[in-house]
Protein backbone atom coordinates (compact mmCIF):
# COMPACT_ATOMS: atom_id res chain seq x y z
CA UNK A 1 0.00 0.00 0.00
CA UNK A 2 1.28 3.42 -0.87
CA UNK A 3 0.32 6.28 1.44
CA UNK A 4 2.08 9.00 -0.41
CA UNK A 5 0.93 12.48 -1.27
CA UNK A 6 -0.48 11.06 -4.48
CA UNK A 7 -2.92 8.81 -2.60
CA UNK A 8 -4.02 11.54 -0.25
CA UNK A 9 -4.58 13.85 -3.19
CA UNK A 10 -6.64 11.18 -4.90
CA UNK A 11 -8.80 10.70 -1.81
CA UNK A 12 -9.35 14.43 -1.44
CA UNK A 13 -10.34 14.63 -5.09
CA UNK A 14 -12.67 11.71 -4.47
CA UNK A 15 -14.33 13.57 -1.63
CA UNK A 16 -14.64 16.66 -3.79
CA UNK A 17 -16.15 14.72 -6.69
CA UNK A 18 -18.56 12.87 -4.43
CA UNK A 19 -19.76 16.06 -2.79
CA UNK A 20 -20.06 17.68 -6.21
CA UNK A 21 -22.23 14.84 -7.50
CA UNK A 22 -24.32 14.52 -4.37
CA UNK A 23 -24.99 18.22 -3.87
CA UNK A 24 -25.91 18.89 -7.48
CA UNK A 25 -28.02 15.74 -7.80
CA UNK A 26 -29.89 16.67 -4.64
CA UNK A 27 -30.34 20.20 -5.89
CA UNK A 28 -31.66 19.07 -9.29
CA UNK A 29 -33.60 16.32 -7.54
CA UNK A 30 -35.44 19.00 -5.59
CA UNK A 31 -35.93 21.16 -8.67
CA UNK A 32 -37.95 18.25 -10.06
CA UNK A 33 -39.12 16.56 -6.87
CA UNK A 34 -40.37 19.55 -4.90
CA UNK A 35 -42.98 20.67 -7.45
CA UNK A 36 -43.91 17.04 -8.01
CA UNK A 37 -44.35 16.50 -4.26
CA UNK A 38 -46.47 19.65 -4.02
CA UNK A 39 -48.61 18.47 -6.94
CA UNK A 40 -49.06 15.08 -5.28
CA UNK A 41 -50.15 16.81 -2.09
CA UNK A 42 -52.63 19.30 -3.48
CA UNK A 43 -54.14 17.04 -6.16
CA UNK A 44 -54.89 14.16 -3.80
CA UNK A 45 -58.48 13.49 -2.83
CA UNK A 46 -58.32 15.50 0.38
CA UNK A 47 -55.86 18.07 -0.94
CA UNK A 48 -56.67 21.73 -1.49
CA UNK A 49 -57.15 21.23 -5.26
CA UNK A 50 -58.38 17.66 -5.65
CA UNK A 51 -57.66 16.25 -9.12
CA UNK A 52 -57.96 12.49 -8.63
CA UNK A 53 -56.94 11.62 -12.21
CA UNK A 54 -53.81 13.78 -11.99
CA UNK A 55 -52.88 12.28 -8.65
CA UNK A 56 -53.37 8.81 -10.08
CA UNK A 57 -51.05 9.45 -13.02
CA UNK A 58 -48.32 11.09 -10.94
CA UNK A 59 -48.61 8.38 -8.32
CA UNK A 60 -48.04 5.65 -10.89
CA UNK A 61 -45.15 7.45 -12.59
CA UNK A 62 -43.41 8.01 -9.27
CA UNK A 63 -43.93 4.39 -8.24
CA UNK A 64 -42.52 3.07 -11.50
CA UNK A 65 -39.44 5.28 -11.33
CA UNK A 66 -38.87 4.33 -7.72
CA UNK A 67 -39.02 0.63 -8.40
CA UNK A 68 -36.30 0.61 -11.07
CA UNK A 69 -33.06 -0.55 -9.37
CA UNK A 70 -30.49 2.20 -9.47
CA UNK A 71 -27.87 0.18 -11.34
CA UNK A 72 -30.37 -0.57 -14.09
CA UNK A 73 -31.43 3.06 -14.24
CA UNK A 74 -27.79 4.04 -14.54
CA UNK A 75 -27.53 2.00 -17.73
CA UNK A 76 -30.97 2.85 -19.07
CA UNK A 77 -30.38 6.59 -19.03
CA UNK A 78 -27.00 6.47 -20.75
CA UNK A 79 -28.45 7.85 -24.03
CA UNK A 80 -30.00 10.76 -22.15
CA UNK A 81 -26.78 11.35 -20.25
CA UNK A 82 -24.82 11.47 -23.53
CA UNK A 83 -27.33 13.93 -24.90
CA UNK A 84 -27.15 16.23 -21.89
CA UNK A 85 -23.50 15.97 -20.85
CA UNK A 86 -21.80 14.67 -23.99
CA UNK A 87 -20.33 11.59 -22.28
CA UNK A 88 -21.59 8.79 -20.08
CA UNK A 89 -18.81 8.44 -17.48
CA UNK A 90 -17.33 10.70 -14.83
CA UNK A 91 -18.85 12.77 -12.05
CA UNK A 92 -20.78 15.22 -14.17
CA UNK A 93 -22.37 12.45 -16.22
CA UNK A 94 -23.40 10.62 -13.05
CA UNK A 95 -25.46 13.61 -11.93
CA UNK A 96 -28.03 12.72 -14.61
CA UNK A 97 -29.02 9.24 -13.36
CA UNK A 98 -28.63 10.37 -9.75
CA UNK A 99 -31.09 13.19 -10.32
CA UNK A 100 -33.56 10.89 -12.03
CA UNK A 101 -33.32 8.40 -9.18
CA UNK A 102 -33.56 11.14 -6.56
CA UNK A 103 -36.51 13.12 -7.94
CA UNK A 104 -39.31 10.59 -7.33
CA UNK A 105 -37.83 9.68 -3.98
CA UNK A 106 -37.73 13.36 -3.02
CA UNK A 107 -41.26 13.89 -4.34
CA UNK A 108 -42.53 11.20 -1.99
CA UNK A 109 -40.72 12.69 0.96
CA UNK A 110 -42.02 16.16 0.18
CA UNK A 111 -45.52 14.71 -0.17
CA UNK A 112 -45.36 12.98 3.18
CA UNK A 113 -43.96 16.09 4.90
CA UNK A 114 -46.64 18.37 3.46
CA UNK A 115 -49.41 15.94 4.30
CA UNK A 116 -48.41 16.10 7.95
CA UNK A 117 -49.58 19.71 8.10
CA UNK A 118 -52.67 20.04 10.28
CA UNK A 119 -55.85 20.22 8.19
CA UNK A 120 -57.28 22.72 10.66
CA UNK A 121 -54.49 25.20 9.95
CA UNK A 122 -55.11 24.92 6.21
CA UNK A 123 -58.80 25.47 6.84
CA UNK A 124 -58.08 28.52 8.97
CA UNK A 125 -56.01 29.96 6.12
CA UNK A 126 -58.82 29.26 3.67
CA UNK A 127 -61.30 30.95 5.96
CA UNK A 128 -59.05 34.02 5.92
CA UNK A 129 -59.26 34.09 2.13
CA UNK A 130 -55.88 32.51 1.34
CA UNK A 131 -55.54 31.24 -2.21
CA UNK A 132 -53.82 28.07 -3.39
CA UNK A 133 -50.43 29.73 -3.79
CA UNK A 134 -50.49 31.28 -0.33
CA UNK A 135 -51.50 27.99 1.21
CA UNK A 136 -48.74 26.09 -0.59
CA UNK A 137 -45.92 28.47 0.20
CA UNK A 138 -46.90 30.00 3.51
CA UNK A 139 -48.92 27.27 5.17
CA UNK A 140 -47.78 23.92 3.77
CA UNK A 141 -44.10 24.67 3.23
CA UNK A 142 -43.90 27.10 6.14
CA UNK A 143 -45.42 24.71 8.64
CA UNK A 144 -43.65 21.61 7.31
CA UNK A 145 -40.22 23.22 7.07
CA UNK A 146 -38.55 21.09 9.73
CA UNK A 147 -39.94 17.91 8.27
CA UNK A 148 -38.81 19.06 4.81
CA UNK A 149 -35.31 19.69 6.14
CA UNK A 150 -35.16 16.24 7.66
CA UNK A 151 -36.19 15.05 4.18
CA UNK A 152 -33.26 16.92 2.61
CA UNK A 153 -30.93 15.23 5.07
CA UNK A 154 -32.28 11.79 4.28
CA UNK A 155 -32.08 12.54 0.54
CA UNK A 156 -28.45 13.59 0.80
CA UNK A 157 -27.60 10.36 2.60
CA UNK A 158 -29.48 8.20 0.11
CA UNK A 159 -27.99 9.95 -2.91
CA UNK A 160 -24.53 9.61 -1.40
CA UNK A 161 -25.15 5.87 -1.27
CA UNK A 162 -26.29 5.84 -4.88
CA UNK A 163 -23.28 7.89 -5.95
CA UNK A 164 -20.96 5.27 -4.48
CA UNK A 165 -22.82 2.63 -6.47
CA UNK A 166 -22.28 4.66 -9.63
CA UNK A 167 -18.57 4.07 -9.06
CA UNK A 168 -19.06 0.55 -10.42
CA UNK A 169 -19.66 1.93 -13.88
CA UNK A 170 -17.03 4.65 -13.78
CA UNK A 171 -19.08 7.26 -12.03
CA UNK A 172 -16.17 9.02 -10.34
CA UNK A 173 -15.87 10.03 -6.73
CA UNK A 174 -15.18 7.88 -3.68
CA UNK A 175 -17.20 4.91 -4.92
CA UNK A 176 -15.04 4.81 -8.01
CA UNK A 177 -11.87 4.80 -5.91
CA UNK A 178 -13.18 2.05 -3.64
CA UNK A 179 -14.01 -0.15 -6.62
CA UNK A 180 -10.80 0.46 -8.52
CA UNK A 181 -8.44 -0.03 -5.59
CA UNK A 182 -10.34 -2.34 -3.33
CA UNK A 183 -11.94 -4.62 -5.85
CA UNK A 184 -9.69 -4.62 -8.90
CA UNK A 185 -6.28 -4.07 -7.22
CA UNK A 186 -6.89 -5.66 -3.82
CA UNK A 187 -5.71 -2.53 -2.02
CA UNK A 188 -7.94 -3.15 0.94
CA UNK A 189 -6.41 -0.31 2.93
CA UNK A 190 -7.48 2.36 0.49
CA UNK A 191 -10.90 0.77 0.16
CA UNK A 192 -11.44 0.80 3.92
CA UNK A 193 -10.30 4.41 4.19
CA UNK A 194 -12.70 5.31 1.38
CA UNK A 195 -15.56 3.59 3.11
CA UNK A 196 -14.73 5.35 6.39
CA UNK A 197 -14.71 8.69 4.58
CA UNK A 198 -18.11 7.88 3.04
CA UNK A 199 -19.54 6.98 6.43
CA UNK A 200 -18.11 10.15 7.93
CA UNK A 201 -19.65 12.24 5.15
CA UNK A 202 -23.09 10.73 5.77
CA UNK A 203 -22.73 11.36 9.50
CA UNK A 204 -21.69 14.96 9.03
CA UNK A 205 -24.48 15.74 6.57
CA UNK A 206 -26.97 14.01 8.84
CA UNK A 207 -25.80 15.90 11.92
CA UNK A 208 -25.91 19.28 10.19
CA UNK A 209 -29.37 18.63 8.75
CA UNK A 210 -30.88 17.41 12.00
CA UNK A 211 -29.37 20.30 13.92
CA UNK A 212 -30.82 22.82 11.47
CA UNK A 213 -34.20 21.13 11.64
CA UNK A 214 -34.18 21.26 15.40
CA UNK A 215 -33.13 24.89 15.55
CA UNK A 216 -35.88 25.83 13.10
CA UNK A 217 -38.64 23.89 14.86
CA UNK A 218 -40.86 26.17 16.90
CA UNK A 219 -43.47 23.62 17.79
CA UNK A 220 -41.53 22.68 20.88
CA UNK A 221 -40.81 25.15 23.62
Amino acid at each position, binding site marked *: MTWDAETVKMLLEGIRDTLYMVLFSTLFGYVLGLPLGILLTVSDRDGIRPRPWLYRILDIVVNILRSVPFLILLILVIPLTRLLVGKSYGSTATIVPLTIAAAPFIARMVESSLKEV*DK*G*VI*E*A*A*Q*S*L*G*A*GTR*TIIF*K*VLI*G*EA*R*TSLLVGVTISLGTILGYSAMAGVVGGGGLGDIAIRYGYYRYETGIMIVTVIVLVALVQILQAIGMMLAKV*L*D*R*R*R*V
Partner: protein
Amino acid sequence: MAFIEIDHLEKTFTSKSGDTEALKDISFSIDKGEIFGVIGLSGAGKSTLVRCINLLEKPSGGRVIIDGKDMLALSERELKIVRRDIGMIFQHFNLLMQRTVLDNVCFPMEIAGVKKKEARVKALTYLEQVGLAEKAAAYPAQLSGGQKQRVAIARVLASKPRILLCDEATSALDPQTTQSILQLLKQINEKYSITMVVITHEMRVVEQICDRVAVLEYGKIVESGRTKDVFESPKTEAARRLIYTRDYNDIMSGGSGI
Protein backbone atom coordinates in the same frame (compact mmCIF):
# COMPACT_ATOMS: atom_id res chain seq x y z
CA MET B 1 -83.31 42.55 5.11
CA ALA B 2 -81.47 39.96 7.08
CA PHE B 3 -77.68 40.12 7.04
CA ILE B 4 -77.17 36.37 6.80
CA GLU B 5 -79.88 34.33 5.20
CA ILE B 6 -79.79 30.56 5.10
CA ASP B 7 -82.41 29.33 2.71
CA HIS B 8 -83.38 25.65 2.44
CA LEU B 9 -79.79 24.58 2.96
CA GLU B 10 -78.97 20.93 2.37
CA LYS B 11 -75.74 19.03 2.74
CA THR B 12 -75.25 15.37 1.97
CA PHE B 13 -71.87 13.69 2.28
CA THR B 14 -71.41 10.83 -0.13
CA SER B 15 -68.91 8.15 0.65
CA LYS B 16 -68.38 4.49 -0.12
CA SER B 17 -70.12 3.48 3.07
CA GLY B 18 -73.26 5.40 2.08
CA ASP B 19 -74.71 8.89 2.16
CA THR B 20 -74.93 11.05 5.26
CA GLU B 21 -77.57 13.74 5.26
CA ALA B 22 -75.79 16.16 7.55
CA LEU B 23 -78.13 19.12 6.94
CA LYS B 24 -81.76 18.90 5.94
CA ASP B 25 -83.76 21.88 4.75
CA ILE B 26 -82.22 24.45 7.06
CA SER B 27 -83.62 27.96 6.92
CA PHE B 28 -83.00 30.87 9.26
CA SER B 29 -81.75 34.40 9.15
CA ILE B 30 -79.46 36.50 11.30
CA ASP B 31 -79.56 40.26 11.70
CA LYS B 32 -76.60 42.56 11.60
CA GLY B 33 -74.76 42.77 14.90
CA GLU B 34 -76.59 39.81 16.36
CA ILE B 35 -74.98 36.92 18.21
CA PHE B 36 -76.70 33.81 16.99
CA GLY B 37 -76.19 30.48 18.70
CA VAL B 38 -76.54 26.99 17.30
CA ILE B 39 -76.70 24.18 19.80
CA GLY B 40 -76.97 20.48 19.32
CA LEU B 41 -75.50 17.18 20.31
CA SER B 42 -72.32 15.83 18.78
CA GLY B 43 -72.95 14.86 15.17
CA ALA B 44 -76.05 17.06 14.86
CA GLY B 45 -74.41 18.93 11.98
CA LYS B 46 -73.29 22.12 13.73
CA SER B 47 -69.83 22.26 12.21
CA THR B 48 -71.16 21.39 8.79
CA LEU B 49 -73.68 24.21 9.05
CA VAL B 50 -71.13 26.82 9.99
CA ARG B 51 -68.70 25.60 7.31
CA CYS B 52 -71.43 26.00 4.72
CA ILE B 53 -71.71 29.67 5.61
CA ASN B 54 -68.21 30.52 4.38
CA LEU B 55 -68.31 27.70 1.85
CA LEU B 56 -65.48 25.69 3.36
CA GLU B 57 -68.07 23.03 2.68
CA LYS B 58 -70.10 23.26 -0.49
CA PRO B 59 -73.83 22.94 0.20
CA SER B 60 -75.66 20.27 -1.79
CA GLY B 61 -78.73 22.45 -2.07
CA GLY B 62 -80.31 25.70 -0.99
CA ARG B 63 -78.79 29.15 -0.76
CA VAL B 64 -76.52 31.12 1.54
CA ILE B 65 -77.07 34.83 1.17
CA ILE B 66 -74.80 37.25 2.94
CA ASP B 67 -75.56 40.94 2.81
CA GLY B 68 -77.63 40.33 -0.30
CA LYS B 69 -74.90 38.31 -2.06
CA ASP B 70 -75.60 34.75 -3.10
CA MET B 71 -72.46 32.95 -1.91
CA LEU B 72 -72.92 30.03 -4.28
CA ALA B 73 -73.00 32.32 -7.30
CA LEU B 74 -69.55 33.76 -6.57
CA SER B 75 -66.49 32.96 -8.65
CA GLU B 76 -63.42 31.48 -6.96
CA ARG B 77 -61.79 34.91 -6.89
CA GLU B 78 -64.85 36.69 -5.52
CA LEU B 79 -65.26 34.00 -2.89
CA LYS B 80 -61.72 34.59 -1.60
CA ILE B 81 -62.48 38.26 -1.15
CA VAL B 82 -65.84 37.68 0.52
CA ARG B 83 -64.23 35.18 2.87
CA ARG B 84 -62.07 37.95 4.30
CA ASP B 85 -65.33 39.41 5.56
CA ILE B 86 -66.19 36.19 7.33
CA GLY B 87 -63.76 35.28 10.07
CA MET B 88 -63.68 31.95 11.79
CA ILE B 89 -62.28 30.70 15.08
CA PHE B 90 -61.92 27.07 15.99
CA GLN B 91 -61.87 24.70 18.91
CA HIS B 92 -58.22 23.86 18.33
CA PHE B 93 -57.19 27.43 17.49
CA ASN B 94 -55.41 26.43 14.26
CA LEU B 95 -52.52 28.83 14.57
CA LEU B 96 -49.42 28.64 12.42
CA MET B 97 -47.08 26.83 14.79
CA GLN B 98 -43.86 27.87 13.07
CA ARG B 99 -44.66 31.56 13.21
CA THR B 100 -44.51 33.96 16.12
CA VAL B 101 -47.69 35.33 17.61
CA LEU B 102 -47.09 38.62 15.81
CA ASP B 103 -46.56 36.89 12.46
CA ASN B 104 -49.73 34.88 12.96
CA VAL B 105 -51.67 38.11 13.34
CA CYS B 106 -49.89 39.52 10.28
CA PHE B 107 -50.96 36.54 8.15
CA PRO B 108 -54.41 37.80 7.07
CA MET B 109 -52.86 41.15 6.22
CA GLU B 110 -50.26 39.39 4.05
CA ILE B 111 -53.15 37.78 2.22
CA ALA B 112 -54.82 41.15 1.80
CA GLY B 113 -51.57 42.66 0.50
CA VAL B 114 -50.90 45.07 3.37
CA LYS B 115 -47.29 46.28 3.53
CA LYS B 116 -45.18 44.37 6.03
CA LYS B 117 -44.24 47.33 8.20
CA GLU B 118 -47.77 48.58 8.39
CA ALA B 119 -49.06 45.09 9.11
CA ARG B 120 -46.71 44.67 12.06
CA VAL B 121 -47.83 47.93 13.62
CA LYS B 122 -51.48 47.01 13.18
CA ALA B 123 -50.91 43.47 14.44
CA LEU B 124 -49.57 44.88 17.69
CA THR B 125 -52.70 46.94 18.21
CA TYR B 126 -54.85 43.85 17.65
CA LEU B 127 -52.73 41.96 20.15
CA GLU B 128 -53.21 44.79 22.62
CA GLN B 129 -56.95 44.45 22.21
CA VAL B 130 -56.86 40.81 23.21
CA GLY B 131 -54.41 41.57 26.02
CA LEU B 132 -51.44 39.73 24.58
CA ALA B 133 -49.10 42.42 23.30
CA GLU B 134 -46.31 41.19 25.53
CA LYS B 135 -46.42 37.79 23.85
CA ALA B 136 -45.84 39.16 20.34
CA ALA B 137 -42.47 37.44 19.98
CA ALA B 138 -43.56 34.12 21.50
CA TYR B 139 -44.49 31.04 19.51
CA PRO B 140 -47.94 29.41 19.89
CA ALA B 141 -46.37 26.34 21.52
CA GLN B 142 -45.35 28.58 24.41
CA LEU B 143 -48.90 29.75 25.14
CA SER B 144 -51.82 28.37 27.14
CA GLY B 145 -55.06 27.38 25.41
CA GLY B 146 -56.79 30.61 26.36
CA GLN B 147 -53.85 32.65 25.10
CA LYS B 148 -53.83 30.71 21.82
CA GLN B 149 -57.52 31.48 21.34
CA ARG B 150 -56.79 35.16 22.01
CA VAL B 151 -54.14 35.09 19.30
CA ALA B 152 -56.65 33.44 16.97
CA ILE B 153 -59.10 36.23 17.79
CA ALA B 154 -56.47 38.90 17.14
CA ARG B 155 -55.66 37.18 13.85
CA VAL B 156 -59.27 37.12 12.78
CA LEU B 157 -59.69 40.79 13.76
CA ALA B 158 -56.78 41.61 11.50
CA SER B 159 -58.87 40.55 8.53
CA LYS B 160 -61.52 43.08 9.60
CA PRO B 161 -64.44 40.67 9.38
CA ARG B 162 -68.07 41.69 9.45
CA ILE B 163 -69.09 38.20 10.46
CA LEU B 164 -67.38 35.89 12.92
CA LEU B 165 -68.07 32.16 12.94
CA CYS B 166 -67.11 30.42 16.18
CA ASP B 167 -67.00 26.63 16.01
CA GLU B 168 -66.73 25.35 19.59
CA ALA B 169 -64.31 28.17 20.29
CA THR B 170 -64.31 27.59 24.03
CA SER B 171 -64.74 23.83 24.14
CA ALA B 172 -61.07 23.13 24.76
CA LEU B 173 -60.84 25.66 27.58
CA ASP B 174 -61.45 25.51 31.33
CA PRO B 175 -64.45 27.36 32.84
CA GLN B 176 -62.57 30.49 33.84
CA THR B 177 -60.81 30.82 30.53
CA THR B 178 -64.10 30.21 28.76
CA GLN B 179 -65.57 33.15 30.66
CA SER B 180 -62.78 35.50 29.69
CA ILE B 181 -62.95 34.47 26.02
CA LEU B 182 -66.73 34.94 25.99
CA GLN B 183 -66.30 38.39 27.47
CA LEU B 184 -63.77 39.22 24.82
CA LEU B 185 -66.12 38.02 22.08
CA LYS B 186 -68.96 40.05 23.50
CA GLN B 187 -66.71 43.10 23.66
CA ILE B 188 -65.70 42.65 20.03
CA ASN B 189 -69.30 42.19 19.01
CA GLU B 190 -70.19 45.51 20.60
CA LYS B 191 -67.14 47.45 19.57
CA TYR B 192 -67.09 46.47 15.90
CA SER B 193 -70.70 45.36 15.59
CA ILE B 194 -69.50 42.07 14.15
CA THR B 195 -72.30 39.60 13.56
CA MET B 196 -71.50 36.30 15.23
CA VAL B 197 -72.55 32.72 14.74
CA VAL B 198 -71.65 30.71 17.81
CA ILE B 199 -71.68 26.94 17.51
CA THR B 200 -71.44 25.05 20.75
CA HIS B 201 -72.64 22.18 22.82
CA GLU B 202 -72.11 24.21 26.00
CA MET B 203 -75.44 25.68 27.08
CA ARG B 204 -73.75 28.25 29.30
CA VAL B 205 -72.04 29.82 26.34
CA VAL B 206 -75.35 30.30 24.58
CA GLU B 207 -77.04 31.56 27.70
CA GLN B 208 -74.36 34.15 28.25
CA ILE B 209 -73.79 35.72 24.89
CA CYS B 210 -76.38 34.67 22.32
CA ASP B 211 -79.32 36.89 21.44
CA ARG B 212 -81.07 34.09 19.63
CA VAL B 213 -80.51 30.39 19.39
CA ALA B 214 -81.39 27.51 17.11
CA VAL B 215 -81.49 23.91 18.22
CA LEU B 216 -80.11 21.45 15.72
CA GLU B 217 -80.96 17.77 15.84
CA TYR B 218 -80.02 15.18 13.21
CA GLY B 219 -79.37 17.93 10.68
CA LYS B 220 -82.65 19.75 11.25
CA ILE B 221 -83.52 22.89 13.14
CA VAL B 222 -86.17 21.73 15.56
CA GLU B 223 -86.57 24.92 17.52
CA SER B 224 -85.35 28.50 17.48
CA GLY B 225 -86.08 31.78 19.13
CA ARG B 226 -84.78 34.32 21.62
CA THR B 227 -82.32 32.63 23.96
CA LYS B 228 -84.29 33.57 27.03
CA ASP B 229 -87.52 32.11 25.64
CA VAL B 230 -85.98 28.89 24.44
CA PHE B 231 -84.16 28.35 27.71
CA GLU B 232 -87.13 29.19 29.88
CA SER B 233 -89.72 27.21 28.01
CA PRO B 234 -88.21 24.83 25.48
CA LYS B 235 -90.92 23.49 23.21
CA THR B 236 -89.31 20.40 21.79
CA GLU B 237 -87.97 17.27 23.35
CA ALA B 238 -84.53 17.89 21.81
CA ALA B 239 -84.25 21.36 23.31
CA ARG B 240 -85.45 20.15 26.70
CA ARG B 241 -82.91 17.38 26.72
CA LEU B 242 -80.05 19.73 25.91
CA ILE B 243 -81.12 22.41 28.34
CA TYR B 244 -81.97 20.19 31.27
CA THR B 245 -78.88 18.03 30.97
CA ARG B 246 -76.94 21.27 31.15
CA ASP B 247 -77.54 21.44 34.89
CA TYR B 248 -76.38 17.89 35.28
CA ASN B 249 -73.25 18.56 33.27
CA ASP B 250 -72.57 21.70 35.22
CA ILE B 251 -72.58 19.75 38.43
CA MET B 252 -70.35 17.12 36.93
CA SER B 253 -67.74 19.46 35.53
CA GLY B 254 -67.89 22.37 37.92
CA GLY B 255 -69.76 24.79 35.75
CA SER B 256 -68.73 24.67 32.14
CA GLY B 257 -70.83 22.06 30.41
CA ILE B 258 -69.12 18.99 29.04
